[in-house]
């Protein structure tokens, strides 16, 4: 059996998405900027795709910029806002959290090198940003706050409603990286005063290499690449027409029911593992409190190391991931778990399981059974 439980990394492209994209490679291949019929029909298609993405956020289509993915959206939002502020002679202070995706953290570090001052907010043991610290950190110089909607490693859903309000009261631009939460956690930009939202297609069964950035009307943003006037002059480069179409189709295909079903399988997985395998700890918010991404489980298995568990499961056909040391080039423990102050002995023992709509109960049962065996084997050779 081959079981894919790494949907936080990427998802299989839905066949209906592929089907929707195909005509745009060969038949409707025109450059949307061309004014002839070939161009016009391509342009019409991407505007329709823009409407679909906008509708999901209750935004205006003119507030949606297509990008190459979450990383570009984060870079554009953060550097674009900072540079616009610098050009306008406004403040130079920016705020984010310690548990952001590298696309955000590295963008902040790049701005620090350019002279911006940055504050990295603490999180509690479940990964929630310290809102008091946020309030205290904002000064007259603050121009941007960037806090992710849901965390990619532990699934913590931040109270972005409250964060957005704090920012609005202080007249600070608020960006949220919603790459993991988009279509899973509702986000209505008419209700939540967020200014910038990053989204990605391949996390929701769309194609890779495409994403979007919501930019609230009137938000000052400086473009990153020079060229033609594509995407309202904000993102030069001929449009990835097939990608935009695929992304929109993927959004269309998401349903409320699948979220309920994924959460049900995730809950069963977590509860059964905690019951059957001794000395396991769930990292992040509890699964029944509604503050955790529906498809995320992050567990630490005492006395065994994450990469070993991952590779043993891999040998049994099961794909999961680990943010812990030894799974990445840096060999450092996860910055998310470290910031959450979890027991240092558990830092290297974590495993992230992220479900998707194509998973079945049978696959979950097989994974639990395999995990029991793998953990027991590895513990038998562990000195701890």
């Amino acid at each position, binding site marked *: 059996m081959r079981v894919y439980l790494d949907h936080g990394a990427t998802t299989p492209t839905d066949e209906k998405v592929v089907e929707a994209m195909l005509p745009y490679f060969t038949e409707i291949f025109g450059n949307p900027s061309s004014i002839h019929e070939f161009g016009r029909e391509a342009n019409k298609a991407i505007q329709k795709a823009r409407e679909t993405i906008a509708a999901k956020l209750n935004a205006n289509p003119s507030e949606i910029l297509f990008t190459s993915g979450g990383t570009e959206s984060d870079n554009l939002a953060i550097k674009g806002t900072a540079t616009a502020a610098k050009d306008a002679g406004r403040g130079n202070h920016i705020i984010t959290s310690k548990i952001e995706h590298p696309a955000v953290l590295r963008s902040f570090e790049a701005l620090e090198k350019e002279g911006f001052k940055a504050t990295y907010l603490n999180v509690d043991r479940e990964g929630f940003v310290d809102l008091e610290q946020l309030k205290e950190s904002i000064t007259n110089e603050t121009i941007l706050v960037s806090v992710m909607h849901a965390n990619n490693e532990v699934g913590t859903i931040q109270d972005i409603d409250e964060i957005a309000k704090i920012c609005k009261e202080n007249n600070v631009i608020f960006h949220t990286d919603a790459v993991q939460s988009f279509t899973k956690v509702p986000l209505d930009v008419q209700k939540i005063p967020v200014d910038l939202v990053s989204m990605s297609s391949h996390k929701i069964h769309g194609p890779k290499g495409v994403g979007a950035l919501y930019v609230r009307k009137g938000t000052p943003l400086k473009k990153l690449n020079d060229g033609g006037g594509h995407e309202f002059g904000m993102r030069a480069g001929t449009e990835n027409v097939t990608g935009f179409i695929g992304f929109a189709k993927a959004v269309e295909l998401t349903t409320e029911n699948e979220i309920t079903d994924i959460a049900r399988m995730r809950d069963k997985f977590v509860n059964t593992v905690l019951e059957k395998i001794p000395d396991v700890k769930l990292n992040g918010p509890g699964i029944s409190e509604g503050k955790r991404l529906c498809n995320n489980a992050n567990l630490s298995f005492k006395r065994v190391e994450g990469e*070993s568990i991952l*590779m043993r499961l891999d040998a049994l056909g099961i794909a999961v991931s680990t943010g812990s040391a030894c799974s990445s080039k840096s060999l450092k423990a996860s910055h998310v778990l470290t910031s959450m102050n979890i027991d240092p002995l558990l830092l290297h023992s974590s495993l992230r399981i992220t479900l998707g709509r194509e998973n079945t109960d049978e696959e979950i049962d097989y994974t639990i059974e395999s995990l029991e065996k793998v953990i027991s084997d590895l513990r038998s*050779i562990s000195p701890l």
Partner: protein
Amino acid sequence: MDEYNEKVMALFKNPHNMGEIKDADGIGKVGNPVCGDLMYAYIKVKNNIIEDIKMKTFGCVAAIVTSSKMADLVKGKTLEESLKITKQDIADELGGLPREKMHCSNLANDALRKAIEDYNEKKNTK
């Protein structure tokens, strides 16, 4: 990250020389679980020869396979010979390790060295 080769993965699925020797003549402990790797080496020594060796390892794939392979390489060797085994020797026997794993997880010969020190100390205090 470079990938683990097939030889490494085969050994990882079925590592040998793993476990504990209750009446070991020397025990060597290296690493730190907070850093992600911890290894215990247990040796039985007779006539200056490593008669038996067992390893207990908490760590990644590289940590486990280097433990297992090091034990293979030193079993039946004299203490002096076994001390000559280098990290590179162990990696070579495994057909190579991902570059970034060469130093962080390849601690087995350090564990052996400590076990031999422990054996020598115990012998001298007897």
